[in-house]
């Protein structure tokens, strides 16, 4: 490709297959206590 570089693939779709265990951190607890960004959290269920 000359016009496009892909920084990240379809990782959300892939995560649907193994996700939902609920063991990860509650988002608001991690640092800010005022918002619920989840994108910076770790998954506890390493495939």
């Amino acid at each position, binding site marked *: *490709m*000359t*016009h*496009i*570089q*892909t*920084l*990240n*693939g*379809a*990782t*959300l*779709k892939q*995560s*649907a297959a*193994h*996700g*939902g*265990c*609920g*063991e*990860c*951190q*509650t*988002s*608001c*607890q*991690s*640092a*800010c*206590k*005022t*918002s*619920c*960004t*989840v*994108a*910076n*959290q*770790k*998954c*506890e*269920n390493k495939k």
Partner: protein
Amino acid sequence: MVHTFVCLGVPVAVDVNSGAVHVLDKTAYDVLTLLDGPLADTCPQELYGKLSQYTPEVVDEAWAELLELQKNGLLFTEDNYIDPAAATLMQQDAPIKALCLHVSHDCNLRCQYCFASTGDFGTGHRMTMDVETAKKAIDFVIERSGSRRNIEVDFFGGEPLMAMDTVKATVEYARSLEKEHNKNFRFTITTNGVLLNDENIEYINREMSNAVLSLDGRPEVNDRMRKTVAGGGSYDVILPRFQKLVEGRGEKDYYLRGTFTRYNADFAADVLHIADQGFRHVSVEPVVGGPDCDYTFREEDLPGILEEYERLAAELLKRDDVNFFHFNVDLSQGPCVIKRMRGCGAGCEYVAITPEGDIYPCHQFVGNESYKLGNLYDGTFDMELSRNFAGLNIYTRPDCKDCWARFYCSGGCSASNLLVNGDIKKPNRFGCNMQRKRLECAIAMRAIRAGMAEERV
């Protein structure tokens, strides 16, 4: 849904539903921004006219590349994660797995913007949690957490170091039950630093998996808001204590956590100031306040704040010794999509408990009687209210459903929605605009760090 933007000079396309992110050149960007749905097999005639700055061959070339992404499930993918009818039922039986333990409704600072009304949460009486109540809270979360193994307990306040005996007794009690109930407790503490000394620094660094240390930034900024009881500044007292704590922390998590208000709209300088004091992990957040406070942002402040985020991103690209919480987006290894739909879990997965044993949906609801969920002593727990919270997710909050940032944000903050819009379901537009800007900055930073930004618009 595809979101295109230019940030830090980098043109980007986010394919919202698949999580794919693409760095574009100017041609591909111009083509894509003219589309509002999937690409046909060949480029429609009228597009050549609209893109007359390019030759048809170049437009065709970009079109073909975009089409290839689409065919590979990386552009204009559908959101087929969940049947919309099932969305409201999604979290019905979620076990409670995280507590915010308000071990002290008392504080030794008088921060002007404190949502806890300087510690007492507007109740007028200051008290600390006794050990009996704290143990009941641990029993409560063990009982309610079902098969979840990881349990989080955040010691919060007021100022939790004013109740250090309760903190220690709680940790000891919880640890004594871990094996028998197959639980793994993770403790965190959020402190203003005033009472830190060698002994409790050592304790925190040993027992707490995360420490959130409150400091707003430059001395004059910090001291304007974070005042002592006598009205003086707190910066000189707390800075050396935080430095000492972090020195002894090793690899464990911590965050220097500041708040910015209308009075320091140039908050990038505060982030950098904190970093320059030797702190790697920094989180500086917009103040949460009602429309009547002088320090709360007004509509006209928004463009300046968004620019400030971009300025901060540009500064942070020049150094690799700072981890700014909201620019830290893990595109590939982050949480699963299920987690990203659900949001913070306040009121269902996560609750706050007061010194009196009252249970609230989260720390920011404490003191708001109409949102009280129950009490540890009389055993009450309002399942209906809890279900109202459990039913909140990116599909049931109307604005989130159509927002490109939904899988990164997970649906905003019910408490600030209530404060600003009087409705836990109605996102706070101002906050959303900041959230989306932070995400754009974070993604653009990733692209630049990955060396993909040579060709800029």
